[in-house]
């Protein structure tokens, strides 16, 4: 494993361990309100200051990591697999299958899914645990987020059908599922990795935006998405740059994932 990949693994491991050890590392629970010290700057007691309700921001970043760092990659994996199955398989089979799958994909891209999400919230009881609510949110994101990659995968798989190595494999008697999984699928990796990598931050941010529909993580539980929403108060960020820490952390984690997914021989001169 090269140096960059080792570094990426180390970073992700540190972040995960810190999140797991939140109970010991955090100065207070993520819900504890220091009402006399709201919107406070960093200090010895609160390393990243407090939010508008006096909650320790460092604690909220740590606990929020648990939610976002576990569920967002899981949802990203789900959407990637769905894209692979629907787009990849349709492209491989070609003909009417590909046309039908792509028509369905295009429809999926165009429909106002906002209303499905609103309906999903309505079907959930009001008294659900914040964890259940956020899990349902990421599941829905995973189930709806496959369309972009599916389209590209269909085209890629379609062009692979007539590739030399596929013809050679077919001539050697390899057929059906084996041909798809062993010869075609590995060549779809660039698109699959791109889909996975893009989906992680997109889903983290989308989870926070879905708060407007009653989905997403419920108060007082934090998530990176809800912490990043603080950046929308641009007027205050320039005066309170510590609010950028969740963004920096997310960028670092996203870069680490990218380093893990990139093969060195695809990059080095």
């Amino acid at each position, binding site marked *: 494993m090269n140096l960059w990949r080792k570094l990426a693994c180390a970073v992700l491991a540190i972040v995960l361990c810190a999140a797991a050890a939140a109970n010991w590392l955090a100065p207070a629970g993520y819900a504890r*309100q220091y009402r006399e010290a709201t919107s406070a700057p960093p200090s010895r007691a609160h390393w990243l200051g407090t939010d508008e*309700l006096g909650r320790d921001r460092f604690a909220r970043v740590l606990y929020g990591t648990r939610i976002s760092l576990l569920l967002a990659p899981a949802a990203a994996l789900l959407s990637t697999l769905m894209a692979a199955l629907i787009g990849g398989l349709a492209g491989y089979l070609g003909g009417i299958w590909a046309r039908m799958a792509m028509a369905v994909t295009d429809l999926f891209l165009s429909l106002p899914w906002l209303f499905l999400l609103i309906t999903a919230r309505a079907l959930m009881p009001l008294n659900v645990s914040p964890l259940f609510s956020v899990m349902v949110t990421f599941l829905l994101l995973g189930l709806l987020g496959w369309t972009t990659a599916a389209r590209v995968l269909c085209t890629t798989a379609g062009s692979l059908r007539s590739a030399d190595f596929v013809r050679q494999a077919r001539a050697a008697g390899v057929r059906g599922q084996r041909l798809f999984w062993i010869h075609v699928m590995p060549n779809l990796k660039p698109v699959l990795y791109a889909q996975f990598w893009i989906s992680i931050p997109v889903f983290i941010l989308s989870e926070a935006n879905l708060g407007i*529909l009653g989905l997403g993580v419920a108060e007082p539980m934090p998530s990176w998405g809800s912490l990043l929403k603080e950046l*929308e108060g641009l007027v205050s960020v320039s005066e309170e740059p510590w609010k950028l820490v969740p963004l920096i952390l997310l960028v670092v984690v996203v870069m680490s994932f990218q380093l893990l997914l990139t093969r060195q021989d695809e990059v080095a001169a």
Partner: protein
Amino acid sequence: MKRDVGKWGPMKRTCGKTLAIAAICLNFLAVHSLAQTAGQTAAQSGGELRFCLRSEPKTFDPLKVEDEASAAVRYLTGGTLLRVNRQTQELEPELAMSWKVSKDGRQISFRLRSGILFSDGTPFSADDVAYTVQQLMDPALHSATGDAFRSGTGNVETKVVSPTQISITFPAPVAGLDRLFDQVAILPQHSSKKELAVLGPFMLGDYKPGATVFLKRKPNYWKTDEQGRRLPYLDSIRLDIQPNRDVEMLRFKRGELDVINSLDSEYFDKLAASSPQMAHDAGPSLDSEQLWFNQVASAPIPAYKKNWFRSANFRRAISEAINREDLSRVVFHGHAQPAAGPFSPANKFWFNSKLKPQAYSPDAALQALQGDGFRLENGTLKDKDGNEVVFSIVTNAGSKTRERMAVLIQDDLQKIGIHVNVVTLDFPSLIERMTQTFDYEGIILGLTNVDLDPNGEMNVWLSSAENHQWNPQQKVPETAWEAEVDRLMRAQASSTDPRKRKEAFDRVQEIVVEQQPFIFLINKNALSAVSTTVRGAAPVILSPQTYWNAERLTVTPK
């Protein structure tokens, strides 16, 4: 040609002096006249006032106004017979020079000003008032403005005595009849331009849907100032449609906007720190925020929860367990006051001054609950049947203050072992739960009081009404106290004696505070931002806070 002044002698010198004095006087007059014209020109080059509307105006028909954006346009363009002075809260003559309400409260007579023209040149007369009233009282209209006058079944009669005199008779007494005319903009009977022909200080110049409403000065506006200068001073008003408050604040700081009519408390403090002369806190407004529980018998929530919510003791205990001082301090940065009851102290006449805000006392709350059979077990409160006290509080997403209040209340109630789930929903979903499915447990929302008179809230306090939020449309009052409130509200509505009305409504306020169907939380302060380029602004608590005197404002260039 040389002048030999010396030949004229003393008489010539006297004539000369007189001429000189006359010349000086003439000069003075010329200068004064020039100054007056210049002053008039300067006053009528009062610049352009720019501010934001939070949503698209739904209509320019003044009779159909329901939303804030349409109300803003109506306020600036509509000519009314009477106007509530937003500063003094007194009713003042406008297009009507004088008015008289009959003793039985059914008839109102106006003496109108003459020589007034609509913006298209059509002359204004009593016929236009009659026409407007007939349109307003048309049963097919279905508007809040018209419904405010509907006190009983039957037709409204208008009698035009002369072009400047009219009397209007209603089938039943209308409480606060004269003040309701503040909302009625007079329409022209004979103009082809319909609602676009207006009597107010401004008229619609241009409308770009989704972007801007541009109002220009009405050149033949009837009002003049004390010096005889024609109003308004402003040349135009530009209203940009911008729902996002962060963007609104950015644009104000950049000088692209002149006022922010209703400012969030977090922005207020930042503005007050950097430009204190621009931030205005007019004190407690009429607005309130409240929490209430679902008391609808048919609500799809567990029966044991209905029992909690229908217990006044439970509601009072919850009220006691909420720290209102913290809500004011933490959520509104001190720009709010704990609420004492349904009306804010800013409503000087109608507020029951005997009422005080509920003091924060979690111990007393717990004791009260224990009296009802609740008990605390390992930090969790359980009712007499062993059910854990867990309920949800719903509020509308997008309102940061309500979301934060809900989280603070969640924390407060956790201290007495009650677990609260905070749910934010989009507004239509919330309204559906509140008014149709009744699938909710607790809701936090606010009441924005546009009018001072409690008669405007009849549909909130009458148990049979739709807006009796905690348990609407009761066929018969389900509790004795609601029956009493019904009786008192009807009594004040049918009385024309302000003292008797106040007595009745004071008692309503006392009952509501005792029973806590609404747990009143806080009264927000009226916060606004006014740029230093705006002259004549005097922000008040009544809406519209900053441009209530738009006809006298000027905007000087930076």
